[in-house]
């Protein structure tokens, strides 16, 4: 099933984490990006982990992410390199 975001970006296959639509669960995929901060890995940003973008701050940055049971916020630039695959929506 093809999912489209504002009719522009395809959400099939891996997409950059920053492009993840708000409120949709996704799973981190691929190798760990090489220039990402060690701290993000320590917080559990490892392949296979489920996460969702809860909301973006009023000015678009930082981003609130729900991951491993906690909600944390990060600046967009720090999340560069992570790719995610959307989970199928169970309920619409």
């Amino acid at each position, binding site marked *: 099933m093809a999912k489209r975001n504002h009719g522009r970006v395809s959400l099939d296959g891996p997409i950059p984490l920053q492009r993840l639509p708000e409120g949709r669960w996704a799973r981190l995929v691929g190798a760990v990006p090489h220039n990402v901060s060690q701290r*993000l890995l320590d917080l559990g940003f*490892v392949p296979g982990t489920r996460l969702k973008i809860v909301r973006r701050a*009023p000015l678009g*940055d*930082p981003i609130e992410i729900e991951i491993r049971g906690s909600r944390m916020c*990060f600046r967009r630039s720090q999340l560069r390199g992570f790719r995610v695959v959307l989970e199928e929506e169970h309920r619409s």
Partner: protein
Amino acid sequence: MSATAPALAPERPVRVALVGSPNAGKTTLFNALTGASARIGNYAGVTVERREGILRGSEGRVLVLDLPGTYALRGESPDERIVEKVLDGKLAGEPELDGVVAVADATTLRRGLGLVRQLLAHRRPMILVLTMIDEVRARGGRIDVGRLSRELGIPVVGVVGHRGVGIDQVVRLVREPWKWPCPKTVPPLDEDPVRRFAWVDEVCKAIGADELPPDRRTDWIDQWLLHPVYGIAILALVLLVFFQSIFTWAAPAMDAIDSLFTTLASVSRAVLPPGWLTELWAGGVLAGVGSVLVFLPQIVILFTFIHLLNDVGYMARAAFVVDRVMGWVGLQGRSFLPLLSCFACAVPGIMAARTIASPRERLATILVAPFMTCSARLPVYTLLIAAFVPARPVLGPLGLQGLVMLGLYVLGAATALVAAAVLSSTLLRGTPSVFYMELPPYRWPTAKLLVRQVWGSAYAFLKRAGTIILCVSIVMWALLSFPKAPEIPGALPSEQARVNLEASIAGRIGHTIEPAIAPLGFDWKIGVGLIASLAAREVIVATLAQIHAVGNPDDYEGLREALQRDVDPVTGRHHFTLATALSLLVFFVFALQCTSTMVVMARETGGWRWPAFAFSYMLALAWIASFVTYRVAISLGWGPAA
């Protein structure tokens, strides 16, 4: 070191440390375990707070150390490095630990177990305390504590810290750490995070801990508090109340403290025999103690607000909303509230910068904090503006005087932001610290914890800064009082005071620095005022009054007239013109004329290097800005009439 613990109780006191992430409920657990016995200090050589207490009912045989909150070991910040050093017994002055109590928030177990795994690698006898288990149940989840204990091979206790649930069991365990069983598996010290969390996910699967449904209350509140429009409006409202309360509630208490010490001083002068010892007591010691205590109302109110907002969970939200803007000048969301507090006073503002987790942004915040217009500058601004800026209407109800006042506030705040941008791209250059911040679920604050935290902040100020501020006040008093001029027979007391001040060391320094400040339009009298204002900015008003032989320092009218009348005996020109006043105002915007601020800065940055730097760069900036202001004002015809 082996993982097997000694079978017998050691002779010396047993030492156990609490380790866990921020927001895991570590402080609440610590308070529940130690009662009121906490001793707060610093780790040797660093500004990381060290808290230790005696385990309830252990009669001093078990000491509990509350290590700083950290999300993982091998961290970058000073707080996080301390944790690992203490764990390894490698911190000078810290004896070996007999056991580690890992503290993890049960609602974020899938993250918290990552830290637990890292702790297991350190091969200390260990137990795990799961906090907030009531929230797990309330959200419809469950955690099998027994299963988790079997998986990890260490005792696991679920607690609700603020209600005391499960605390007795923890107390019983902590009493005898040498009896704790050893962990089932010990991972390598440098385990890869990918593998670490694979283990975490396996454990969670084995104990059947599913992901928790979201906290509905938090979702509902956030929908409003983080809303693009309402969220910003609510933040503005919170800040307004915050800000207003510092001024309206603290001001009466500060005035009361001030007048109490003024009264005590005059009573002392009346009762005690005259002489320099009485003067030392009244003018040095009492004034010094007063100048320390006068900060207390602001500190208490400010920290009540900060801790309350933090305990509830709103602080992180406010930082989330403003982070983008602060990021433009190299700061971060958490810098916002400390900087705002500096409008009241830089002393609590700099202390509040402790809430900034990353050291680089924290230092930048501290270094620019004194630019924010604090309340001590107000008397100076009020006096000079009232005396020299004509009360002309400019735009509707806005007068020129009000505009100048507003301009000074804006100038200070803008300078702080520009300075932050410049500092973080020059002196503090480097990769910006990773910004990550937890947005914890909203929780009810508990009065007990709040009172403890506020008292802790007040105590820290009194103990660490108060003593030095007191000493500096006494030194300033001596500089302004000695040596005395000979008595002039028949002179008015105000005239004698003027002569004495001119003869004093401070008076001589004023004369000495006159060539340096003359380009700014300042004569030696203003020089003496500037020296005196090093004790506290507002002191310049009283000093100017004294040096112009105005009897009562609170007599603004009299001082204003004296300043306007002041004429150079040689040239016959007015000293104190609009150009001089503007120049002096600008000088006060920029210069770090406040020993208390510098003392607190030294305390918070761990040495006198940064306060010395701040003092120098702010002084240089003040001199240049005043010089430019003075020249421009003269060219506009606001200078001394020829």
